[in-house]
């Protein structure tokens, strides 16, 4: 059996990609520093997972042929397995060459992360010639598995992946699972299945076998669509009753959640909440009105500093020591004003100039807070300490008890979500939508473009200011270093990865990114990622822009904008696969107004 030139080229391409990704992961230090964390005891560490995940994927992709309009789907057979194996072999050889080079020459002068320990890890603690065999063999096997995946029936393949994903999630999020088990008095189970923060192998196998029989549904977006359709097919009275019931359930859940999570997880979740509020605000500016604001952190800083100056007894010049509840409206007002001040000059600019100017404003504000010039008011680099927290009855809510802060975060998030939702579906929301799609046409239809853009800026500023007020009360102190450009960028990544223009998307983005990877100054659940967090954020941003610019959970309108031709193709595929069932194709649904 021979490969065609096309197949050979694809195999080579994917083996080089997989090999280089593995070499990069090793050389950048991820492999070694993640190796300390086992995820499945005693066989798999996070380091090896980060090293090898690409190989099965490459093996799969190397033999993956997209189903195209007018072309028969290619037959599947032994060639898939062979190509997968070859891809894995190629990748393994590249890794082996890297290991030999790293072993022979002392590269530590230049590449600080290439250590003898790395070489030992990559050769599986074996001596070099024998160990190299494993270095090549394991990627080959993984690549073969990736290629062989094509041979499985669709449903079985999907179930396998789902089960595997679940096992990894339960293993990686050991902190959450063990904590919840502790809280519901199942300590014994937690101690049984986890050893050294890793899932025991028998527990992993058991979980895998338990999930395997569950039929996996089609992709997530379709699932959301299906639920939505079902929701709208029932009659209105019933629908309202259902919504009320689910709202109550969610509320009870939210009230119980902090108690269930304990303080460490509540802390993480409170940070997620803060970023979610800002994400929702930036979503209005970027996702709805289409203005790329890179200095969004400025409003967060303004909110936090206003509260700090007004409430702290250590505020240098002006210390009225107001209650947080009085300071909050002032903070929101000041944020709104700064929104007007920054927004007015920039909103007429071209999109990319607007991005750079807002970035400039963000940096100006941070440097001013930092400067000696304004230190009599804002404390300079020392910041403002001793912010008293939120008085509530006889107690004070502050970061010392993350559970109670979490309730405030929930409340703020709900308000922010409600504000964005109702604005999005109001007259101004439709104006933003029109504006983003085509400014000239929007203006011709009577949208006051300048006004609409400024409104977006102000709403965004107010939400960030509210997050800032909460942040100041939570931390008990503010420093200029909390408001670096990085924060703006990370909020942007949250919005983009989650799905611009979609509230649920932003929420998912915040939970996944801030909760797991961690924010700029706050650790997430996977504290191991700390060093490489920003590397991963950068890579995610590039990947999302190249492959899925609409985000994980896209707003429907934006998905249509970015994938018009693919939607047509899907429609064609659907028709050709189910010729008899006449279900509405996606190109027809696009004609409906967005609801």
């Amino acid at each position, binding site marked *: 059996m021979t490969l065609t030139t096309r197949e050979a080229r694809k195999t080579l391409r994917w083996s080089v990609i997989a090999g280089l990704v593995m070499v990069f992961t090793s*050389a*950048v230090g991820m492999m070694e520093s993640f190796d300390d964390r086992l995820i499945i005891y005693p066989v798999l560490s996070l380091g090896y997972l980060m090293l090898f995940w690409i190989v099965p994927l490459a093996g799969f992709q190397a033999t993956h042929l997209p189903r195209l309009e007018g072309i028969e789907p290619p037959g599947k057979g032994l060639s898939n397995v062979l190509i997968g194996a070859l891809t894995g072999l190629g990748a393994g050889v590249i890794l082996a060459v890297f290991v030999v080079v790293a072993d022979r020459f002392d590269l530590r002068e230049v590449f600080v992360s290439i250590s003898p320990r790395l070489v030992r890890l990559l050769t599986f603690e074996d001596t070099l010639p024998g160990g190299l065999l494993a270095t090549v063999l394991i990627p080959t096997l993984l690549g073969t598995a990736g290629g062989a995946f094509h041979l499985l029936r669709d449903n079985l393949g999907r179930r396998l992946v789902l089960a595997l994903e679940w096992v990894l999630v339960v293993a990686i999020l050991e902190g959450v699972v063990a904590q919840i088990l502790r809280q519901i008095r199942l300590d014994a189970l937690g101690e049984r299945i986890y050893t050294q923060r890793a899932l025991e192998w028998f527990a992993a196998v058991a979980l895998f076998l338990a999930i395997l029989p569950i039929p996996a549904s089609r992709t997530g977006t379709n699932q959301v669509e299906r639920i939505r359709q079902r929701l709208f097919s029932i009659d209105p009275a019933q629908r309202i009753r259902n919504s009320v019931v689910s709202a109550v359930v969610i509320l009870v859940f939210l009230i119980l959640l902090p108690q269930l999570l304990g303080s460490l997880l509540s802390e993480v979740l409170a940070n997620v909440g803060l970023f979610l509020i800002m994400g929702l605000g930036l979503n209005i500016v970027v996702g709805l009105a289409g203005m790329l604001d890179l200095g969004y952190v400025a409003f967060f800083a303004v909110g936090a500093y206003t509260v700090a100056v007004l409430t702290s007894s250590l505020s240098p010049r002006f210390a009225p020591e107001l209650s947080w509840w009085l300071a909050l409206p002032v903070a929101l007002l000041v944020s709104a004003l700064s929104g007007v001040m920054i927004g007015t000059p920039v909103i007429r600019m071209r999109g990319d100039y607007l991005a750079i*100017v807002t970035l400039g404003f963000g940096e100006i504000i941070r440097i001013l807070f930092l400067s000696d010039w304004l230190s009599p008011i804002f404390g300079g680099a020392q910041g403002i300490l001793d912010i008293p927290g939120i008085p509530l009855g006889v107690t004070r809510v502050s970061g010392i008890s993350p559970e109670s802060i979490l309730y405030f975060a929930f409340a703020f998030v709900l308000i922010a979500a409600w504000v964005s939702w109702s604005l999005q579906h109001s007259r101004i929301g439709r104006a933003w939508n029109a504006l983003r799609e085509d400014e000239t046409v929007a203006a011709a239809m009577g949208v006051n473009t300048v006004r609409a853009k400024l409104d977006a800026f102000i709403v965004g500023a107010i939400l960030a200011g509210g997050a800032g007020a909460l942040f100041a009360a939570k931390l008990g102190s503010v420093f200029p270093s909390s408001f670096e450009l990085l924060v703006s960028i990370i909020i942007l990544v949250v919005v983009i990865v989650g799905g611009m223009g979609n509230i649920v998307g932003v929420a998912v983005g915040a939970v996944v990114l801030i909760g797991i990877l961690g924010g700029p100054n706050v650790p997430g659940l996977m504290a191991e990622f700390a060093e490489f967090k920003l590397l991963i954020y950068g890579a995610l941003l590039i990947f999302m822009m190249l492959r899925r610019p609409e985000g994980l959970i896209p707003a429907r309108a934006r998905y249509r904008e970015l994938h018009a031709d693919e939607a047509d193709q899907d429609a064609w595929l659907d028709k050709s696969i189910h010729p008899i069932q006449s279900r509405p194709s996606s190109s027809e649904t696009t004609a409906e107004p967005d609801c």
Partner: protein
Amino acid sequence: MDSLLWGVRLIAILVLIWGVAGTIVQGLNGAGPSAEAWRDLVVAGIAQGAMYGLIALGYSMVYGVLGFINFAHGEVFMAGAMSGFFVANYLWQVHFWDNYFVLAILLVLLTSVLTSMLVAVIVERVAYRPLRASPRLVPLITSIGISFFIQYSFAGLFGVAVKNYPPAPDSLRNRIGFLGLEIEGTKLAVIVVALISMGLLYLFVEKTRTGRSIRAVAEDKEIAALMGINVDRTIVASFAVGGVMAGVAGTLWSLLFRGVAFHTGFLPGIKAFTAAVLGGIGNLPGAMVGGLFLGTFEGVGSQLVLAGLGIPAVSQLKDVVAFTALVLVLIFRPTGLFGERLSSEDRA
């Protein structure tokens, strides 16, 4: 709206005049910096500005042909400076650096230039080419991602510590007389090298065949393609040329400041973009002049304007001056001082 902008303009001008007047009064009273201090400030500003100008050329060329801000260009510059360090460090260890300094610095220059060029070209191939047809903000967001990715890859690969170049020989560091002024040798060298590279770039773009195709693609991609120009290759060429200039800037930076770390490229990158806008984006002589102007203004301007207003520790506010310059230029003269040159579709 308009009245507000006029108000901002008026306030900016008033602050400027008030500050300058204050500084002059201070100077007359003998309170301000001495004449030598002013001279050093101006020379340092020009040297810094020459580097901004070199980096700005890369922004301007990419904006000219593709119409988006290549946010990662600062990292291209950093990559050059960083790779040069390893060569310089090696040459220092084998005592080649102090014995044959000129040869050594040429080797370092070659390394930086090649690395920067390579990084710029790879970034174009991997990330920007697939996005040619996307809305304008998509490549911009991608370039932010690339910027972070390169920064933190370098942090992981080469360590987070600041890497110090070996010192230049004393003969270069001493002050030398130039046009009746005593100027530090390194700064003079930086200015001269930067001006020569800008001149060469200008000749390249104006006189060579590749330069002509770059200009044609910047004017109108479709028509250029119809005229038989390979648009893809031309775009790669303009990224490469921008990378070369960033590499030169990287070496000059290390001569001047010696320290290089993974985050070195970020601020100079943003400021160089400011310089490019200041001179009119897409306009190559504009980028050079914009760089020189911004460098001088940020060094001298903080002293000249802010000190006159009685603000303490003005050197902290250097970046504020640069960013304010950016904001003011974009508000009041977004086409830059010398007018922008954009393709027909970008002007729309």
